[in-house]
């Protein structure tokens, strides 16, 4: 029951002391599908992402990536298997430029960090690919700007560029639209929409407009539990979801 699909999480449980942040959650992401994970603050979305990425160990349950069990693998190993993520709060290396960030992602994914001699800043193979990845998210003009000098929206784009540079089997995005402006948000949504069908994605997002535009399937989490899962049309009208999360007014607003 737990094999197949790009990602399959089975009966995951994570407790913090007396609090069960993730409570017997099972979900699957099929190839090329955008699977949105929604739920109110504190529902356990980030915890679930961390269980899948390997930063937290589940108290119970198992995780599979492309049919291979990864429950016990370390974060870096999972990343080299093609599990790429962005963080809810941008997490970058302040003094590195945008281009250097993407180059770092490339060498991490390729497992080529044990090259001791060649100058990485003059490594044309690495740079050409890194520039192409930056261009993919529209950041080519900011290639030589240190990450700390980028705007908030640009940092989000950079996070995405790094994740995409890893040629991901599965993209784990934790609130990629959080805190960015309307225009930059629109751009990000278009970017993500352009990836549909090509990259399997687990997308945690609060912006319901974006979720309903992007998602092929939506899973709703409250208090660590899945209360509904299915295609957007089904979720929008699911009574328990409307009550627990969307609220009457918002539900109709969210309809495109």
């Amino acid at each position, binding site marked *: 029951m737990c094999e197949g699909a790009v990602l399959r999480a089975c009966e995951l449980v994570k407790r913090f002391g007396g609090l069960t942040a993730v409570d017997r959650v099972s979900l699957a992401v099929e190839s090329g599908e955008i699977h949105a994970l929604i739920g109110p603050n504190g529902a356990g979305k980030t915890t679930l992402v961390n269980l899948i*990425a390997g*930063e937290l160990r589940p108290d119970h349950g198992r995780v599979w990536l492309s049919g291979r069990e990864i429950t016990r693998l*370390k*974060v*870096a*190993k999972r*990343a*080299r298997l093609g599990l*790429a*993520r962005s*963080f809810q709060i941008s*997490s*970058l*290396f*302040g*003094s*590195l*430029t945008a281009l*250097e960030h993407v*180059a*770092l*992602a490339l*060498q*991490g*994914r390729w*497992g*080529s*960090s*044990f*090259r*001791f*001699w*060649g*100058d*990485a*800043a003059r*490594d044309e193979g*690495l740079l050409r690919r890194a520039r192409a990845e930056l261009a993919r998210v529209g950041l080519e003009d900011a290639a030589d*700007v*240190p990450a*700390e*000098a980028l705007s908030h929206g640009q940092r989000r784009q950079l996070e995405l560029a*790094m994740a995409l540079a*890893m040629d991901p089997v599965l993209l784990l995005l934790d609130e990629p639209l959080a805190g960015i402006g309307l225009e930059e948000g629109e751009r990000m949504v278009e970017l993500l929409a352009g990836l549909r069908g090509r990259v399997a994605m687990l997308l945690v997002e609060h912006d319901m407009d974006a979720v309903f535009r992007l998602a092929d399937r939506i899973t709703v989490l409250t208090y660590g539990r899945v209360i509904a899962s299915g295609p957007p049309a089904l979720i929008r009208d699911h009574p328990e979801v409307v009550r627990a999360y969307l609220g009457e007014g918002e539900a109709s607003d969210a309809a495109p």
Partner: protein
Amino acid sequence: MPRLAELGLALRAGLLTLLALALMLPAWGDPYVVKLATRILVFALAAAALDLALGVGGMVSFGHAAFLGLGAYVVGINFLHGFEGSLLLGFAPTQSLVLQLVLAALLAGGFALLTGAISLRTRGVAFIMITLAFAQMLYYLFVSLRRYNGADGIALWNRSDGGLLDLEDPVAFYFLCLAALLLFLFVGGRLYHSRFGRALRAARDNERRAQALGIDTYRVRLVAYGISGAVTGIAGVLLANATYFVGPAYLSWPVSGQLLVMVVLGGMGTLVGPVFGALVLLLLEEFLPGLLDSVRPGLGESWKIVLGPLLVAIALYARGGLWGVLARRRVARVRWTGPRAAKAPRHV
């Protein structure tokens, strides 16, 4: 470590002058000066090697004396067996400098990998204490090794066999140490800017993020620690030859502390900075007592009381160490990205 091309013109000229001075120093002809300069070069090599772990890799090792001492004992033990005409673990002892350097690098590097594999599972203060504990363990081992004169150590009657190079010639030996230091600065620079160096700095700056990119931060750190230990072992071989002596004091914690001070004083994470740290610290240790005595006779005895606060002051005022002060111009290069970016040094 900065790229040469990124340094200001004045600084580049200054470095070149310093190199020229180092090359001409033996022509001065004072054997005392050559001896002191040799000692500075050896400690500069050890400090730069420590910086690879400490500054570039973010691993605060308080046990690098162990690697220095191991390298020194490679010379001492081989000398003793050679002198007695006895075998060393069933092998004929070697006086060859090249072989001793290789042995020291393998032994110190191996010890670094072994102890690093354990200590790198911890962080922060725990890491400092564990590296200290491993070094002290080795210190007590050598103190209690009667076979090798215990606490008395081994006095060397002659230096290692340098083949074509006559190491007994102080000038030849001085140039050997200078070459070793310059070679490591070059190799260290390559390492710093390589993919490995980038991964190492990424692990230092944001470990969690580096791991999410697929970088095995534990292994990257461990390898850097091993290299750092191996090079410090090489410095140990030179130290034994420089002083004609090997003793457990080389492995003791004050030596580890001294190396740490050199790195912090010179500028962490720059590899060149610690060279200046070694230069200034050893010159102060050498001349501060006399200087104080000339101010007021008898004051020289309490030079350590002056040195301590002086080091604290430098650490506080020059946060990037001496190198940070020298290379301040460098920052102007990225000013265009705005004031926030200009404050932080770029690491690539």
